[in-house]
């Protein structure tokens, strides 16, 4: 298929349709409203359903309902909206239901601002809602990856029967870039008759299914948590994705960065290379599961003297980086989070001060 020029938000919407998602519930919020605007036009053409909830809290439970029925379902929102949905995300995780959440992150806390930020890293990777659960979280660095990851997200949500999140930001949502759509994903969730409350009439099995997140019996609850833990361990074995940039040379500094910020770092690395300064970057594409070994290996390469995590927040992923580097190298941090994205020149200045 030929390349098209699309806004990230619209491209994510189209990717969802091509992934076979015909159920979309949402509540408008800047900077992701174009997703809803696009799908309100496109979904009826696909025989799908768009419903605007009365709030993000309601939307979260619409997602839960559709997911429990074994339907491919997605919502998109931005930071404050995701906070409101966090209760339902915890329920969906506990009840083992597949669903896709897209967070086009804006500055916070509170209402914050509407410009790009990476301030929701903790919320996305460490919880957000209550209890022992994780989302599988994919962090695209541009429109093309946002499309690919959105389509992957449905496959992963069904593979693990759990919520998957796309952690974007306002820039990825608003920016237009050329995009090429992968082949459509149309396979039905194969085992949904075994667990989904999809109606006795529509399936061959006569077994009654129950989707729930309440386990009053302590053994039962412990078992559900063990089952969730087993899924997260499997994700750590099978789903880690990362990009290693300029890691072949003898670099003195390793940058860790994700999403939009990593693009700025890439430019800074290219410019430093022209001056003869070798710097590498390790970019997690899955921020949960986190590429623990890749970060450790890149940080402990003999030439590497220090690690710096560069993020559009006040220091979040850096905690995972420190955990992975295990004290073998000094780990520092640079971040800005008002909505202005740090420039390559600023990154260069910081790197030069380190060496």
């Amino acid at each position, binding site marked *: 298929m030929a390349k098209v020029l699309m806004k990230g938000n619209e491209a994510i919407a189209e990717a969802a349709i091509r992934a076979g998602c015909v159920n979309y519930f949402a509540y408008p919020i800047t900077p992701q409203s174009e997703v809803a605007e696009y799908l309100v036009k496109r979904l009826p053409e696909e025989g799908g359903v768009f419903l605007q909830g009365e709030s993000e809290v309601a939307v979260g439970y619409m997602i839960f309902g559709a997911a429990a029925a074994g339907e491919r379902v997605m919502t998109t929102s931005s930071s404050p909206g995701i906070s409101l949905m966090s209760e339902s995300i915890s329920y969906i995780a506990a009840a083992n239901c597949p669903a896709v959440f897209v967070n086009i992150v804006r500055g916070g806390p509170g209402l914050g601002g509407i410009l790009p930020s990476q301030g929701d890293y903790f919320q996305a990777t460490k919880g957000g809602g209550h209890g022992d659960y994780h989302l599988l979280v994919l962090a695209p660095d541009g429109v093309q990856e946002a499309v690919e990851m959105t389509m992957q997200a449905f496959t992963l949500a069904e593979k693990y029967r759990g919520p998957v999140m796309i952690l974007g930001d306002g820039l990825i949502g608003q920016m237009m870039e050329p995009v090429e759509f992968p082949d459509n994903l149309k396979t039905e969730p194969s085992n949904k008759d075994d667990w989904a409350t999809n109606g006795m009439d529509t399936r061959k099995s006569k077994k009654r299914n129950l989707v729930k997140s309440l386990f009053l019996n302590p053994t039962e609850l412990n078992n559900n948590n063990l089952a969730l833990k087993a899924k997260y361990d499997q994700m750590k074995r099978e789903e880690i994705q990362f990009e290693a940039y300029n890691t072949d040379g003898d670099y003195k500094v390793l940058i860790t960065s994700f999403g939009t910020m990593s693009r*700025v770092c890439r430019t800074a690395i290219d410019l430093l290379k022209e001056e003869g300064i070798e710097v590498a970057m390790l970019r997690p594409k899955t921020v949960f599961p986190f590429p623990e070994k890749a970060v450790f290996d890149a940080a402990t390469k003999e030439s590497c003297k220090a690690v710096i995590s560069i993020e559009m927040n006040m220091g979040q992923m850096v905690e995972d980086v420190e955990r992975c580097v295990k004290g073998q190298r000094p780990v520092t941090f640079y971040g800005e989070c008002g909505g202005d994205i740090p420039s390559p020149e600023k990154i260069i200045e910081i790197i030069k001060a380190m060496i």
Partner: protein
Amino acid sequence: MQTEIKFAGFGGQGILLSAKLMAYAAMKQGSFVAWVPSYGPEMRGGTAYCTVVISDKLIGSPIIKNPTHLVAMNLPSLEKFVNDVKPGGIVFINSSLIPITSNRTDIEQLVVPINDIAIKAGNIRASNIVALAAFAAKSKLVDLDLLKDCIKEEFAAKAKIIPLNMKAFDEGVNFANNNI
């Protein structure tokens, strides 16, 4: 090789569309492109600006502080951004709304009364197309016929305004070619 163009003006002038058409034509020419709008609680009459990045390799940072060129559609845009333009760049000035030019001598200034040209072509609303055409003719960043095709494609659903925009385009190109 990377080129960045900042399009700036007030909301309603068609800045985002001009920029999108430039990005679209560059994409069709085989370049990597990014179209990065300013977004915020804007309204008609408020400020609007947008950066188009065109590159022969994968675009790293799409956030550009010092663009190669500037297309200024109103006075505040010129005043705000002209000093950011890299030396050697083109600064397009909409002289219908901007009574001054820049003091800078290390840039090329392209002064075009786009509103007047658009009115003469049939409708002031085509002034963004006049600006795009004149800038494209001067900068030679994209093939002009390809750019015209992109405009036709963009307006495919409103076919009756295509002739107006084609006329506006040609007038813009003519002005740029004859007045430099």
